[in-house]
């Protein structure tokens, strides 16, 4: 068996960083990253970007050396992606914040509202309902992070956690402040409005969960395969007929429900900003599906049936 030689150069300075001899032809990029890590312990594999061309795309961990367009002495270029943090850590942190923060406003912890309201409870039952819905939503997300989702990337840049937490925690505080305020005004159409909103919210929470389960089942444990999702026996997944990313569709629905339930403008803002971001992601995902699968169902839209 002919062995390969691998040299790794810095993508910017072209300095020779590492030379590996006697590399197996069936070695993967992931294995090469581990070997590189041994000689440069500060660059753990998750923060290595290995490419064939200094300005090219990153190679995948699964790529096999002998299947790459390289000679028996392979030259790779390395770029440091910066400090990385695992997706699971980011999700757990960014979702625990809103859960805790909202409850602090709900229980009217001191220094938020006027002292005479400390530790009092709202007289409106919709405020209690809203707290239950909001808490349920984030507990669901935490549990999904721990037990349901299968991530294709292990890590993301460290600075993302500050950006993401600012977004989630900031909006949670802003919404919670008004909903739990002593001067909160309940919905104009009263019980009817709240009941309708609750039904929408619950429907979409179940829907969102159903999609997450369906997506999980597309992918065997530990794999990173990508397949086209299709409707299953669960009626909540039939929306796959019309939409590529129904998890986002249902998420939008949940927050629209919450907005109507609380009749609170900051919640409407949060819903809108989330919708914009999810639309961007949905369009990207939809484009990837179209690029990767020739037989991708043409009827599907990214996030809103027929519309967007």
């Amino acid at each position: 068996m002919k062995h390969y030689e691998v040299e790794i150069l810095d993508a910017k300075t072209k300095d020779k960083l590492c030379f590996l001899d006697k590399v197996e032809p069936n070695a993967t990029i992931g294995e090469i990253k581990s070997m590189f890590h041994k000689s440069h312990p500060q660059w753990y594999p998750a923060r290595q970007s290995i490419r064939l061309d200094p300005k090219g795309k990153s190679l995948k961990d699964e790529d096999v050396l002998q299947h790459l367009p390289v000679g028996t002495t392979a030259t790779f270029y390395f770029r440091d992606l910066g400090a990385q943090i695992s997706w699971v850590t980011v999700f757990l942190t960014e979702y625990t914040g809103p859960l805790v923060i909202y409850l602090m406003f709900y229980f009217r912890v001191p220094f938020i509202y006027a002292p005479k309201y400390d530790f009092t409870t709202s007289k409106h039952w919709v405020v209690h309902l809203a707290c239950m819905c909001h808490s349920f939503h984030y507990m669901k997300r935490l549990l999904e992070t721990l037990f349901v989702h299968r991530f294709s990337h292990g890590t993301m840049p460290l600075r993302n956690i500050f950006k993401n937490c600012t977004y989630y925690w900031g909006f949670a505080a802003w919404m919670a402040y008004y909903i739990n305020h002593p001067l909160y005004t309940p919905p104009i159409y009263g019980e009817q409005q709240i009941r309708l909103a609750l039904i929408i919210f619950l429907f979409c929470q179940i829907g969102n969960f159903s999609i997450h389960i369906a997506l999980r089942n597309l992918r065997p444990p530990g794999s990173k395969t990508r397949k086209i999702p299709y409707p299953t026996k669960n009626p909540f997944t039939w929306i796959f007929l019309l939409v590529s990313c129904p998890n986002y569709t249902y998420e939008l629905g949940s927050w629209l429900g919450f907005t109507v339930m609380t009749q609170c403008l900051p919640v409407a803002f949060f819903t809108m900003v989330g919708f914009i971001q999810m639309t961007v992601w949905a369009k990207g995902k939809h484009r990837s599906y179209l690029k990767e699968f020739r037989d991708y169902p043409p009827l599907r839209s990214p996030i809103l049936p027929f519309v967007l």
Partner: protein
Amino acid sequence: MSAAAAGTSKAAHGDVAPKKRRGPGALATAYLVIYNVVMTAGWLVIAVGLVRAYLARGSYHGLYYSIEKPLKFFQTGAMLEVREVMSRVFLTWAVTHSVREVQSEDSVLLFVTAWTVTEIIRYSFYTFSLLNHLPFLIKWARYTFFFVLYPMGVTGELLTIYAALPYVQKTGLYSVTLPNKYNFSFDYHSFLILVMISYIPLFPQLYFHMIRQRKKVLGHIEDYSKVE
């Protein structure tokens, strides 16, 4: 909601002036030339207006009124250059126009003068650049005058916002209080204070960006003699 994959893209620091690499088409060039000529002319009008009003009155007081209309027009017209100009539009409409009492402040004159000189130089720079005939003097002025004009403008802007604060608090201008059916509130007074605080990180960024640009653009004057 799952977060996006690694990597964010940084928005480019934007000047409207086209880079030498590709260059705009003929129609785009014509549009840009006309736009920049008009903007240069507009800011010249403001400058001339200021000088004439000063000569007529013999004092700096009330000079704002002599140029109020063209200032509003030309500053708002510049909405096309979103970034740096957002703060200017804000200053013009949301502060100076909205709070009558600050219009007679000297700080207003301070930032109007700074903006005027900056913009005349900047738009002539763009105009000449587009016509590929940039006098070195203009390029030099653009990347040197800012040393004084930026701090001058920022000082004027901050002092003006500061002067507006007591009136905003007293009248509750642009503010919304609880209770209301949208369960929303907004305190313009606090917002203005936040705006003032935001100058602390933002102004040094802009300032050092210009210093870096200056080194890049003028750094070669030791190597080459003045080029037309």
